[in-house]
């Protein structure tokens, strides 16, 4: 116990200012999806920070049920950070707490397995390939619907409102069901774009000069490194993104080019390590971060474009993750400073308008874009730039969808509860499609919608822009 305590104590001693900053005001409580649903303060950010402090003070064992359960139940959505008047860096503290918790007690097999796969190239690539092949058979969509499940919108909450997860068998079945549905949901939304062919000439709209206005200071970009030339952008291709969403990566490259960016490819990059960091596997995360720092250095890009906000948030924090590393620490900070979500890069250029997309869509803000990176207006501005697109507001858009990395697999009931609330909210808007900016959210909400019997597709923001540009003929030669 004392060793563990020392780890956290040391880790937190370095962060002492951050933890002591918490004045216990409670402003974070209503922002927390788990507290809102369970009503237990131990499931609130303030409560979790208090448990961390108790471990530091030696009043609580990091292996205790209380610490394990409540730190484990955190989605890591970081919705508590923007509302904290004291500026407590909750996300960082959570990763430390998870590390300490993980040292005190082994995390579940499934979680360890997933981290291992994503952290190992020779496991990840075949896994993704298998996923694609399986997805192509159409079996996952079918099987997910066929498997019995607990969560459908409108069902009674009695079984899960206490936050207790089911037994191992039910949990395995739930994980399988959700996993299959998520895989199915990663498929392209072909029907959305092909059901309603555009009725107008595709050649009317041409690229227009870039412009930037209306953004918040935080979201406005500085001039490119190379002075007046087109800024160079490197793209993180990612693991899941490369494996299951290569179309999104391709679309990202196309729409950035159409907006005047010079897109370069970067070899030798890999998984960003976000899943590992969030789970407290900080050493594994650092290994992956170092690799990416080295890979991206060579590209000398002005910006590193991110189309997975979970990865964006993680890379933007490489500086603090590798702060202790004398060899790459400085370079990691430099890389982190150039990481930008694709929506920001596009919004800074206007973006260029394409052909009309006569669709009604609604937008769900990924937590790691909105809360962790503070990007609020850019995605909206990008959507508004697409002619003919009707954007209806999504009530609760700022709340986590329950995806939260592998949360849906580790906490099927609570994650399912949060997810089904999101699904209900989406269904109530009557939108043709849900737009978001993170593969995890695409799969989580997509799975939820499919399991609820809905055919509403979930698409990435750049897919819409890309389709609009395609119809406008931007890529036709």
């Amino acid at each position, binding site marked *: 116990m004392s060793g563990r305590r020392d780890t956290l104590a040391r880790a937190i001693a370095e962060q002492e200012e951050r933890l002591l900053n918490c*004045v216990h005001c409670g*402003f974070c409580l*209503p922002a927390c999806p788990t507290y809102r649903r369970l*009503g237990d303060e*131990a499931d609130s950010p303030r409560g979790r920070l208090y448990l961390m402090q108790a471990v530091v003070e030696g009043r*609580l064992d990091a292996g205790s*049920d209380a610490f394990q359960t409540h730190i484990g139940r955190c989605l890591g959505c970081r919705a508590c950070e923007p509302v904290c008047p004291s500026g407590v860096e909750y996300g960082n503290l959570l990763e430390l707490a998870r590390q300490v918790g993980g040292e005190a007690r082994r995390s579940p097999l499934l979680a360890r397995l997933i981290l291992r796969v994503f952290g190992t190239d020779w496991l990840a690539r075949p896994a993704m390939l298998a996923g694609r092949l399986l997805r192509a058979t159409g079996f996952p969509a079918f099987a997910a619907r066929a498997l019995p499940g607990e969560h459908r919108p409108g069902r009674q909450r009695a079984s899960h*409102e*206490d936050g207790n997860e089911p037994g191992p068998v039910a949990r395995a079945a739930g994980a399988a069901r959700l996993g299959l549905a998520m895989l199915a949901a990663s498929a392209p939304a072909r029907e959305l774009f092909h059901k309603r062919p555009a009725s107008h000439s595709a050649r009317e709209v041409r690229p227009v000069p870039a412009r930037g206005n209306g953004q918040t200071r935080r979201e406005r970009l500085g001039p490119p490194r190379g002075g007046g030339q087109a800024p160079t952008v490197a793209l993180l291709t990612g693991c899941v993104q490369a494996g299951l969403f290569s179309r999104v990566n391709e679309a990202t490259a196309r729409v950035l080019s159409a907006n005047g960016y010079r897109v370069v490819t970067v070899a030798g990059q890999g998984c960003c390590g976000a899943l590992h960091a969030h789970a407290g596997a900080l050493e594994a995360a650092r290994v992956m971060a170092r690799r990416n720092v080295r890979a991206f250095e060579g590209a000398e890009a002005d910006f590193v474009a991110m189309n997975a906000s979970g990865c964006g948030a993680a890379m933007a924090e490489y500086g603090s993750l590798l702060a202790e590393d004398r060899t790459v620490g400085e370079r990691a900070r430099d890389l982190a400073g150039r990481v930008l979500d694709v929506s920001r890069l596009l919004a800074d250029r206007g973006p260029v308008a394409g052909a009309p997309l006569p669709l009604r869509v609604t937008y769900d803000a990924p937590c790691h874009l909105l809360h962790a990176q503070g990007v609020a207006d850019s995605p909206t501005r990008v959507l508004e730039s697409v002619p003919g697109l009707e954007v209806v507001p999504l009530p609760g858009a700022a709340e986590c969808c329950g995806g939260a990395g592998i949360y849906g697999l580790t906490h099927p009931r609570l994650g399912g509860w949060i997810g089904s609330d999101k699904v209900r909210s989406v269904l109530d808007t009557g939108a043709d499609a849900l737009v978001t900016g993170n593969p995890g959210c695409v799969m989580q909400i997509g799975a939820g919608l499919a399991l609820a019997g809905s055919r509403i597709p979930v698409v990435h923001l750049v897919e819409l822009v890309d389709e609009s540009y395609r119809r406008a003929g931007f890529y036709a030669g």
Partner: protein
Amino acid sequence: MIPDTLTRSLAEICGPGGVIVDEDRLLVYESDALTAYRHRPGAVVLPRTTAEVQGAVTAIARHGLPIVPRGAGTGLSGGAVALDGAVVVGTARMNRILEIDAANRRAVLQPGVINAELSAAARPHGLYYAPDPSSQTACTIGGNVAENSGGPHCLKYGVTSRYVTGLTVVLPDGSVAKLGGRGREAPGYDLVGLFVGSEGCFGIATEIEVGLLPLPEGVRTLLGIFDRIEDAGRAVSDIVSAGLLPAAMEIIDGPTIRAVEDSVFAAGYPTDAEAALVIEFDGLEAGLDGETARAAEFCRRAGAREVRRARDEAERMALWKGRKKAFGAMGRIAPDLLVQDATVPRTTLPAILKGISEIGKRYDLVVANVFHAGDGNLHPNILFDRRDEDELERVERASKEIMQLCVDSGGTITGEHGVGLDKKHHMPLIYGAAELDAMWGVRRVFDPSGVMNPGKVLPEETAPGWPGHGEGRGAAEGEGAGVAEPAVAAMAPP
């Protein structure tokens, strides 16, 4: 620890997940937003309905254990701290708005509804809920009822008790009483008014009926920047004497300005100023500009270095955010703070502010003031680090002097935070034995066996025979064993 039989009955009433008895999990319920007081409850129960509260209260009372109601735990007086292993009855799961009756401008809700969310729900009807404590994004209406909460806009609109028109309450004996309701007219004693502000000592409100107001058509927000805080205080007095009735008038002093500007809620106050005075007018568009201009003139005449008007809604919101999150932002200056809540006659403001600043200097302490100047409701925040024992001692003495200064000027010890655990020993500063005895009497009317929130509001020594004291209850745990026991002494970490 509570007896297993009680755990079982509570689990039957509120569901197994609605009862928390694991000592480790109970740690997080040790404190409210005043972390000076830490006491682990015997258990926490989270009911959903009036019937569940009734069942829980009956079961706990049958075991002779004390009961502490708790909302979001954002209180600043230790009111929701469970002394002597009391069982906390939390309202977090009672968060449904039961009815918004736009035609009659009223709403009926459960106590766990968050203040700001009530206003958000009323907004589509063109209505809002007027009392706006600075913690309104997190605090619950049930907590507001218990504390009779105020807020910046209470200058014009009045505090919580003006808006609560009816209550369903579970009394300590487990019976349910309906007080008032369906509008403001109720013959007989104003039991609703008596219950509001009773700090959880009379029972638990499980359904609350409140009045709503139409949203004002226009708002103007002014910011006066002063080099001396007394000048800001004078501007406030002058504005009021001139017959202007702003919706709010708030002063933020130099140290607070610097803390806020350093936080994510930076409002654009100049960091070298010694006071920022925020003045807001609301109402019909017509006439607002004239009133704002007059108030601006009073600021200039009182010596404002600069007077600005929020140009748009975004600027206005930022300006208010800075004010409302000021308390939390103090966490950036020092690890600990002691917030006071005295209210003084408005005309004494300049003298009191000067006095507080002198006391701070004398004890070599940073005192950050942020307060509802229009109401004369001061919030001197004494900043310190509890690890420094000498400083702790000085905080204690300065705190007492400030309190005395305010009372001597005709003020009171608490304007909106409540007495709770923190200020009960200051009650004799403003009330004599007869008044305290009368309050004990009323408390007994609601709670003859002394199970509701014992150890709060009234100092035990003023009613020696009170059953609520129990064996070692309250006073024995280190907090305020005697009248002179300073509030700050308890701040040392356990």
